[in-house]
């Protein structure tokens, strides 16, 4: 086990809600009050513990992700690590040269040119001028701003601004790099390049602490993840597991008992009493193996009879778009249902979603009257396992085959039609010069 480069031991941080003394007038009156012995009278002060007994260590070469809902204390952790804030309790030890990227281009000045800002921001992040001069070309190329180097940054677009900011920080070569939610800027290609650069830094022996809301990125980059919730550590461990805990914290939903918290609609006329999935072996739960036969079961408790009942189950990505909407009406299934509990089943011969965390909701309509009987929030979590076979949205059944000449015989014609994006990458069957 390698040594700890960051020791964050039982750290608590308190903030005052409400300003203490905002002007000298307040201070004067407060000190007068204190002087005349009315010390107890504290008005408008309230303590807010942004962090309570947070304890973690980071070893050399690790990539620690910190996730959590807004206000969980993530940025406070980074600021404490960076030395910007001081803890009220506990102990922080940082061993090595640390660079914090808490805001891209924090030290940029709009009137200065890109080049001037590289030098300014570089020294702010802890590089020497000589170091910066030697890396200038790399920084500019990484940001892709060669043509705009001598333009004042106030004329930069926000994307250019952010790219330059990240590019400088990415070239600091610190022992420890703190990154706070900055990669949400820039386009997809740039983001990919940032992730690549972070991996490269780690290969070179750097330690990374990474705050993000982008769960995909977190899972790609991090080796370990801490989930913060309301100033406390809710979970610490493998990134994939952390995602579930994070989502639970964000949505307030529980992963384990999906039927918790019945949602009633229209004076309790329809209730969802159960929502679960059953695999081929008959095992019930909210965990699904991708591409296996699955049965989704929803139990509805009807308080009134419905002539033509339509049921819909929607599946949404954890923090994103709707992936699937299964609607009985669209399949021309209208159920005539009396008062009482009814189980509706959806049979899926295969479940082709990529592994990850999803959320479901259930809706029901009375097709005759066009009234909504039930519309639950997306609070029922669904976990799909795909054994690492897919990234993206789907886990499609597919097979690979290779048709072509084996190695060493150049086949120039295969180069035609290949996108230039792949030119220069090593592919078997393609000649590489």
């Amino acid at each position, binding site marked *: 086990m390698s040594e700890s480069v960051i020791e964050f031991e039982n750290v608590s941080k308190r903030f005052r809600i409400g300003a203490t003394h905002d002007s000298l007038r307040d201070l004067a009156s407060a000190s007068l009050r204190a002087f005349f012995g009315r010390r107890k009278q504290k008005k408008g002060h309230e303590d807010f513990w942004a962090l309570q007994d947070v304890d973690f260590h980071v070893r050399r070469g690790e990539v620690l992700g910190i996730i959590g809902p807004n206000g969980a204390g993530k940025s406070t952790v980074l600021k404490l690590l960076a030395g*910007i804030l001081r803890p009220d309790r506990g102990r922080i030890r940082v061993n090595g040269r640390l660079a914090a990227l808490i805001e891209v281009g924090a030290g940029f000045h709009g009137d200065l040119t890109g080049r001037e800002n590289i030098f300014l921001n570089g020294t702010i992040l802890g590089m020497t001028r000589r170091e910066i001069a030697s890396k200038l070309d790399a920084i500019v190329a990484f940001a892709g701003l060669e043509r705009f180097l001598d333009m004042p940054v106030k004329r930069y677009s926000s994307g250019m601004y952010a790219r330059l900011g990240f590019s400088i920080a990415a070239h600091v070569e610190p022992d420890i790099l703190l990154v706070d939610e900055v990669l949400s800027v820039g386009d997809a290609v740039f983001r990919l390049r940032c992730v690549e650069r972070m991996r490269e830094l780690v290969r070179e022996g750097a330690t990374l602490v990474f705050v993000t809301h982008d769960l995909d990125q977190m899972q790609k980059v991090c080796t370990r993840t801490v989930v913060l919730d309301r100033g406390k550590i809710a979970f610490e461990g493998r990134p994939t597991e952390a995602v579930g805990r994070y989502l639970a914290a964000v949505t307030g939903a529980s992963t384990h008992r999906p039927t918790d918290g019945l949602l009633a609609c229209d004076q309790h006329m329809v209730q969802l009493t159960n929502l679960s999935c059953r695999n081929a072996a008959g095992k019930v739960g909210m965990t699904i193996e991708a591409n296996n036969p699955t049965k989704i079961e929803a139990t509805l408790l009807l308080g009134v009879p419905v002539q033509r009942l339509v049921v819909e189950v929607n599946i949404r990505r954890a923090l994103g778009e709707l992936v699937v909407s299964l609607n009985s009406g669209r399949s021309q299934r209208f159920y005539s249902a009396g008062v009482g509990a009814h189980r509706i089943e959806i049979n899926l011969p295969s479940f082709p979603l990529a592994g990850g965390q999803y959320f479901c909701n259930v809706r029901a309509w009375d097709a005759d009257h066009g009234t909504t009987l039930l519309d639950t929030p997306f609070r029922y979590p669904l976990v799909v396992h795909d054994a690492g076979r897919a990234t993206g949205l789907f886990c499609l059944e597919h097979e690979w085959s290779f048709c072509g000449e084996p190695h060493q015989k150049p086949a120039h014609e295969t180069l035609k039609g290949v996108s230039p994006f792949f030119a220069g990458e090593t592919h078997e069957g393609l000649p590489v010069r």
Partner: protein
Amino acid sequence: MTSLATTIRFADFSRFQQLLWSLTWRDVRIRYKQSVLGIAWAVLLPVSMMLVFTFVFTRALDAKLLLPTSMPYALYAYLGLVPWTFFSASLSGCVNSLVANRNLVTKVYFPREVFPLSSIGAAFVDFVIALVVLCGLIAYFDARSAWTFVAHRSLFFLPVVVCVQVMLTVGIGMMLAMANLFYRDVRQLYGVAIQLLMFVSAVVVPIPSDGSLLAQAISLNPLVPVINAYRDCVVKGCLPDPAPFIYSSLVAVVLMVGGWICFRRASYRFAECI
């Protein structure tokens, strides 16, 4: 211990120096960006101030009566205005230095002293330029007026005078920067105080030495011996009066050490209170 971690990061003195240099350079650069005359303003400002005061005190009022020496009033005024501008421009920069760099104070860690110090550094650049102009003015008055310039060894004492002034500025500047971070009233009060201070610091009019209560009160101002020392060293060719100058030096050392300690003590609260 956090303090230990802080010290480790602190230890890199050359980094601090580079940062100070970068921020100073930024302040100088920004001041003259997008202006037609650019860095020429560093020369034009003190010279035009000199012309204003020369007009007021030689045409409108007669300051000759107050002047103890044969030195041309314009030179007297310029030699007061140059160190005064250095002092007041430094402090004006310091007062706002932390607040104006809020995004750095709350987003990046490094010793916070660089903010007021770089403001002083930027003012120092202008000060040096103004001193170069002084050489030209001396040559001009030497040729065009009854007064003649005699170079004297006392010129070598000038760096000591500058040093004392810098220490005084650092001490006051740090306290102002810190105070303004906690209470923005400081900036307003500073604006009034600096105006008042100019007229009791022998900048454009000599301090009356008639032993009145007012004169005695003014003599407590540590800036008076410093500004007079410039005239003594450069033009009069003598060393400054030792007693007041030593008094100023002591005050400067005390203010600088005290100001720096207070600043350091409070600096860990800057990011929260700004």
